[in-house]
Structures are given as C-alpha cells and as structure tokens.
C-alpha cells in the first residue's frame, strides 16, 4: 500500500468530516455579523462582543468537533467502515483530527476575522500561536475527544479516568500553589506553555494509541487510550511535583541575588531574603536563617514577607510567622543556642486570618501579633492570649515592646488611606488589659516608625504625594514636633538611631540628611547629593549612618554614603552598595533600629563591609 493512498485516505476522511459539519461554518458566518449589528440593536460594545463571541465560537467548535469526530463513530460502531478499507490507522485518525482542527480554526477565524479587520483587536503574533494558540486548540480538541470516548464507553475505566484526573489535578494545583507561595508565578507563559504542550501531547498520543491499538471497538479503544494518556500525564505531573519540591529546597548556595538581610544582635546568625537563579526558576525567593561562620542554615519560608523574623536581644532565639497571609499562620521558634538550630512550632493563640504585624519582646518571652481586626499579646509557648484588643482597618502595622513589656501599636479608625485619626493601643500582658492611650491626627496613608522602647513614634503622612513627617509621644500621641512640613520634600524616609535620635532623609531636588533629637530638635543637616534619588537611611554601625541613593528606583544600582552621625560629615561614598537591612519590602513594618554592616552590591551579593577600612567580604550570592 502506497503512502499516496494513505495520504489520499487521510484527506478523504477529513473532507468527509468537514462536509458533515459544514453547517458549523454557516453558523460562524451568522455569529460574525452579530458584533456589527450590536450598536443598532443595543446589545453591547462591538469590540468586546466580537472577541467574546469569537472565543465562544472557538470553544464551541472545539467541543463539538472533538466530541464527535471519533467518539460518535466509535460508539455507533461506524468506524469499521474505514478500518475495512486499505488505509492505515493514522489516515483515519489524522483525517478526523485534521478536520476537527480545521473546523475549529476556520470557525474562529470567520467570527474573529472581521472584527480584527476593522481594528477592534489585533491578531496575536507568531509567538502567541506557538505558546498558547496551537497547543491550546490541540489540547482542547484532544481532551474533549478523550472525555467523549470515555463517557460513551460507559465502563468502569471511565471512573478510573476521573479518579486519575482528580489525583493529577490535585498534584498540579498543590505544586503550583506551593510554587506561587515561594514567588514563582506558576500561572505564566513559562508554565502554561509547557503544560499546554504536555496536555496536547498526552491527548494526541492517547488518541493515536486508541486508533492504532483499539481500532473500531470502543471498549478496547477506551482502555488503550486511558493507558496511553496516563502513561504520559502521570510522569509529567509527578515530575512537576518533584521539581516543585526540589525548587522549594532552596539553600544559601542557591541564592543569586540578595534582597535584604539583617543580623542577630550578636553572633554570626543572619536572616537573608534572596532570589534564586538558574536552574531554579526566575522569581523564586526564600528567607533563610544562615550562620555565616558555619554555613548552617534553616529555611524560614518564602521571601517577600514584610514580617522580618526578630531575634531576641541575647541572639539565642529567632521567631517568625510562617504563611502570614494564609488563613492558618504558624509560629516557629529557632533555638540558636545549640550547634544545629532546632526548629519548634509553638502555639499561635490568635483567630484564623492573616497576620499584619509581629514583634517579640527583647527578652523573647512575649510576642505580639496584629491581624486585620485584632491585636494580641501572648507569652511565647502559651496556648492562650494574655491580652487582645480590637484593631482598626487592616494594614501592615509595626508593633513595638516598651521597656516594661507592653506592646504599642497604631490603629486607624477609618480607611487608613483617608485623613483621620490613629489610635495608640497599648496592650499590657501583666495586667491583661489593653487600652487606647492616645491619638495621632494623620493626613492619610500613614507610615509609622517606632523609636527604641516605643517612647517615640515618627509618622510619615501621605507617603505617595506631598508627604510630611511628625514626631509623637509613643503612648499619648502628643505631637512633639513637625519635622518635615507638607510640601517641603518629594519623599521622606526616617529611621531611629540606637540612642533614640531620629535620622530623616528628604528627597527633592537633592538629598538632605537631617538628624533630630528625641525632642524634635534638629542636631544637624547634611546635603548628601545634589540630585534627586530614592533614598533610605540606616544605622549600619554605632555612630555611622548609611544613606542609600538609588538612582532609578528599586532594584536598580545604588550607592551608599556613610555619614558620621556625631560630626554630621560624610565619611566616604561606597559605590554599588546599599544597606542590606533597608529592603524596600521589609522596611514598612520596621519597628526598631536596623542592625548593620551588611550590604548588598550591584551583583546581588551579600557583603559585609568593614566600615573603617572599606574592605568588602562577600558572604553569599552574586554569582
């Protein structure tokens, strides 16, 4: 038998299938006219309707053809007509699938073509067809064929198919959700394209096997199809799950680009958040607890959490909230006193719901949690809250413990973006009482920075436009001073120094660093840069403030100016470095002074800088 007869047979089968369903194309012509009639009959917007009807037409055609070209003939025992002719199985199968593909494509083109021609939408480029269009059509038609054959076979195998489908979908969703938690956006072209191609390949192989080995009888056809389908899809799904597990096992050696890092008050433990690089996917980030001396590490969870894990003042413990934005956040303690840090999940006596703020008392005995509508203080390890108090509108909230162990937190009475009043809540675990101890008026969208021990709180109002900065008493909210009035600076960043003073960076036509006493009196000011840049100030060593100058916004190259905070003069400029603790993301919920000498260079490497000599030691990342 010649190839010529086989190909002729394929075309004959395809032509027969198309001619049987030619009415579908007639329907498409009618549907194509609807968007152009829409303005006259008042049923909607022409461009939107055109695209909507086109998509519906494509899906309808795919379902109609995919469910009938093979499954109907099989179920009605008509496939034998072709199998009793001298044509190979692939002619029969190929002809039928070609017809389904052509009918779907042409029906879609008929509906979408006219609206594209008048400029209602633009035809996707070639890349889209390779990534989505072609595999999507094959996958939809093939999947519908598989479902139709399974359904019409009416055997127990179909129940097994559904069970397998459920199991594999569960695996894929679970893996994808896990990846997304770790910053890998699993609903993107990078994932959807291979998934579509894998599904298209699986249903194509299954359909081909069904025809090659099952032939004209639906029961063995369905059995062969199922075996082929799951033989392809199961390893793909399990491989994806295994890959997802491997991806999430990111360690310090996998960090390519450090986002932020801060160190324990003493010792060699640091917390670092960084992005991975090839062979792990773009976007993957993790927060790791790393001992820079021994290279021991523990994964604390995905990166990009605004709740930086605090250390106790003796650096013997680090505590963090896992899955803070999930419905069931967990609290974990790392005991850093032993050689191998032991991780322990401890009770988190708060109601279900995401966590907006977290703080640990300096002695590590008490913890405070802010949620959407509740602030809670509890003894670490206890099953019960010591004290709770209602909290205003949900926002990221910085919490701080004062010297007598009470937690201070700001609560917005109104939508925090609007002008209004912030209440100062003080929760005292000793008396098990919480109270509103003071108020602060705000112009809206406030960002608070607590001073050491909660004695002072600085509030940047309307961060996004014409910001201002006020300094308040940390308990009564009484205005101590307006440090930067509205309209003076384009951007304001503030950070408290260890001695209780406040360093403020104003960005406008230039960058000015100003240092204020705890009473709001200006100690000195310094022109750091004559040109505008996005800035942060961080105390990187006792007596040394680092001012970050980020020239093109976040993620771009930064320089750092080191300033002697006693004399108010520039020590030196460090090109290509920024303070590691001043992460743009972690900064919002900052509740105390940064711990310093860690920097990130322009390659993303975490660097320990010798403030005196300027020597740089790369700790990890950057490769």
């Amino acid at each position, binding site marked *: 038998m010649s190839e010529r007869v086989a190909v002729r047979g394929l075309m004959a089968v395809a032509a027969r299938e198309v001619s*049987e369903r030619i009415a579908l194309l007639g329907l498409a012509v009618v549907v194509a006219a609807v968007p152009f009639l829409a303005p006259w009959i008042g049923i909607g917007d022409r461009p939107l309707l055109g695209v909507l009807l086109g998509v519906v037409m494509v899906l309808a055609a795919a379902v109609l053809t995919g469910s009938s070209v093979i499954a109907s003939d099989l179920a009605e*025992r008509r496939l034998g007509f072709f199998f009793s002719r001298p*044509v190979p199985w692939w002619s029969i199968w190929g002809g039928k699938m070609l017809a389904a593909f052509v009918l779907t494509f042409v029906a879609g083109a008929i509906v979408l073509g006219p609206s594209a021609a008048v400029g209602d939408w633009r035809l996707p480029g070639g890349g889209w067809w390779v990534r989505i269009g072609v595999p999507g059509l094959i996958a939809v038609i093939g999947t519908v064929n598989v479902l139709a054959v399974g359904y019409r076979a009416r055997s127990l195998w179909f129940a097994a198919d559904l069970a397998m489908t459920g199991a594999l979908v569960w695996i894929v969703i679970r893996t994808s959700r896990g990846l997304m938690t770790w910053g890998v956006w699993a609903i993107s072209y990078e994932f959807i394209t291979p998934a579509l191609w894998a599904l298209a390949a699986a249903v194509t192989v299954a359909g081909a096997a069904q025809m090659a080995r099952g*032939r004209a009888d639906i029961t063995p056809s369905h059995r062969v199809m199922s075996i082929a389908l799951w033989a392809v899809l199961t390893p793909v799904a399990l491989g994806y799950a295994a890959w997802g597990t491997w991806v999430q096992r990111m360690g310090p050696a996998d960090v390519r680009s450090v986002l932020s890092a801060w160190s324990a008050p003493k010792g060699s433990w640091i917390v670092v958040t960084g992005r991975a690089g090839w062979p792990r996917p773009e976007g993957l980030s993790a927060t790791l607890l790393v001992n820079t001396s021994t290279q021991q590490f523990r994964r604390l969870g995905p990166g990009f959490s605004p709740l930086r894990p605090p250390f106790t003042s003796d650096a013997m413990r680090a505590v963090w909230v896992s899955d803070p934005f999930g419905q069931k956040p967990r609290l974990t303690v790392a005991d850093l006193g032993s050689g191998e840090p032991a991780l322990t999940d401890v009770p988190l006596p708060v109601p279900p719901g995401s966590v907006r703020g977290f703080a640990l008392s300096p002695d590590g005995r008490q913890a405070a949690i802010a949620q959407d509508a509740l602030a809670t203080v509890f003894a670490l390890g206890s099953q019960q809250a010591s004290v709770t108090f209602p909290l205003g509108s949900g926002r990221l909230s910085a919490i701080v413990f004062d010297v007598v162990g009470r937690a201070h937190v700001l609560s917005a009475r109104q939508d925090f973006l609007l002008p209004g009043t912030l209440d100062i809540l003080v929760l005292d675990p000793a008396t098990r009482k919480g109270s509103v101890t003071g108020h602060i008026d705000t112009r809206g969208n406030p960002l608070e920075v607590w001073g050491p021990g909660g004695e002072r709180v600085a509030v940047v109002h309307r961060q996004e436009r014409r910001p201002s900065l006020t300094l308040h008493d940390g308990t009564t909210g009484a205005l101590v001073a307006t440090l930067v009035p509205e309209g003076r600076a384009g951007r304001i960043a503030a950070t408290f120094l260890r001695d209780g003073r406040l360093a403020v960076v104003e960005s406008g036509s230039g960058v000015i660093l100003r240092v204020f006493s705890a009473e709001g009196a200006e100690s000195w000011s310094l022109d750091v840069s004559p040109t505008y840049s996005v800035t942060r100030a961080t105390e990187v060593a006792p007596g040394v403030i680092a001012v970050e100058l980020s020239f093109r916004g976040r993620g771009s190259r930064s320089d750092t100016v080191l300033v002697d905070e006693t004399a108010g003069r520039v020590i030196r400029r460090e090109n290509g470095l920024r303070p590691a603790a001043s992460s743009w993301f972690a900064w919002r919920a900052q509740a105390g002074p940064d711990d310093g000498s860690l920097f990130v260079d322009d390659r993303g490497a975490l660097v320990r800088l010798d403030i005196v000599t300027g020597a740089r030691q790369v700790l990890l990342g950057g490769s």
Partner: protein
Amino acid sequence: MNAGTEGVPLSCEHLSIRYGGTRVLEDVSFSVPSGCVYALLGRNGAGKSSLVRCLVGQQRATSGRAVLFGRDVWRDRAALMARVGVVPEEPDAPPELSPARLVALTGRLYPRWDEAATRERLRRFAIPMETRFARLSKGQKGAVQLALALGHAPELMILDDPTLGLDVVARDQVFSEVIGELADRGTTILITTHDLAAIEGIADRVGMLREGRLVLDESLEAVKERYALPLERIFADVTSASAGGAR
C-alpha cells in the same frame, strides 16, 4: 509471510478471545482454501461476529491469530484490505452521505477502484443514488455495503450475516446473484449466516461454532452424507448445548 498459509486466503490459528473473564472463542483453527465458499454457522452469541472482527483486523485476538493470504491481519490490516471485501452485520457507512457520495468517498480509499461497476451494481439493486444512507431501508443499506465491498474486485469476501433482516426477495438476490456470481468467478468467500437453506446450494465447506468452540469443520457434502439429514437438523443437533463435539 507464513510459508504454510501463503496460498490460503484465510486461516485461523488457535484463535481465542476473552472479554475479561468471559470466554467468547476458544482455540478456533480452520482455513478457507482459494475459491471456496465457507459458511460459518452458529447460534446467537456463539462468537461469529467477534471472529469476523478478528478476521478483518478490527479486533485483536486474546491468543492465536487470524491470517489472510499468509499475513497476520492484525499487523498488516491496511495492506490486506486491498484484497478483501467486508460486509458487516450492521451497516456502518457514514449516515449523512448518499450512495453516490459513498461511492466517491470509498473509491478514494482504494488504490484500485471500479466506480462504473459499483454504480452499475447499485443501479441493478435499484438504490436511489441521492438519498442519504440513513434514510435507506435495511435491505438497501445492505445492498450498498455489498456494492462498496465489491468495488475493488476483492479476492476474498467476508460477509457477516449479510441477509439479517432482509425480506425473502432481497435474500435471494444476495445469495443467488451476488454470492453465486462471486463463487463462479473464483472469489473466496467466508459467510456467517442463519439462513441455512440459502447456503445449502452455494457453500463448499461449513463450520459450526458452539459456545466459542469450532465443533464442526467439513465439506458440506461430507456433512450431509455423514448425517443424512437436512442441514437445519444437523445444525440443531451439532450446536445444541447437550450435543458433544462432532468434529
């Protein structure tokens, strides 16, 4: 190519079929020599249709094999079908096509195809050429299937109960005009049927299936001589559940 069966148009070698735990055919072996008209008989559910599906390469045997012209039909189905004509028990042509379009479609599936002869045969059967296949009577459908199976002048015809549901006139037409004519031309024929009277005049050999086993495989003359009974009685005796093997 099997040297032993190369010249034999059709043979079954220890063919068995099981559906799960159900045995449909058990160790069936027979062959149909060239030019022979072989009538395969059996009561309903004896396994005839399953056997025919194996013989035309549409179903795989659980064990054993079906061989056409010395080649395994499961493996070489497409090539072998160029030499074989098949008439199924249930008409399976695309229902929306007219006989005229069916002739055109089927012709494109064969390397050699005599369209004129096929149309002439349909005319002789008085088939309306532009009526959709689905709207034809059962007899007309059978006639169309038969005409389509003959369009490439097959060396072997396999007919699965082609007269099932036909009236007496149509049955006579099938047997006397078509099968008789084919037999006269030397075409090898395997036919399954319940119409014992009709095959009595044309069959050379007869095989009888009982509960999946081939219990009789002899020339029709020898069977009639041995039993000295009408074929209906022989069939009833041989295929009844209480009968022993008569092979």
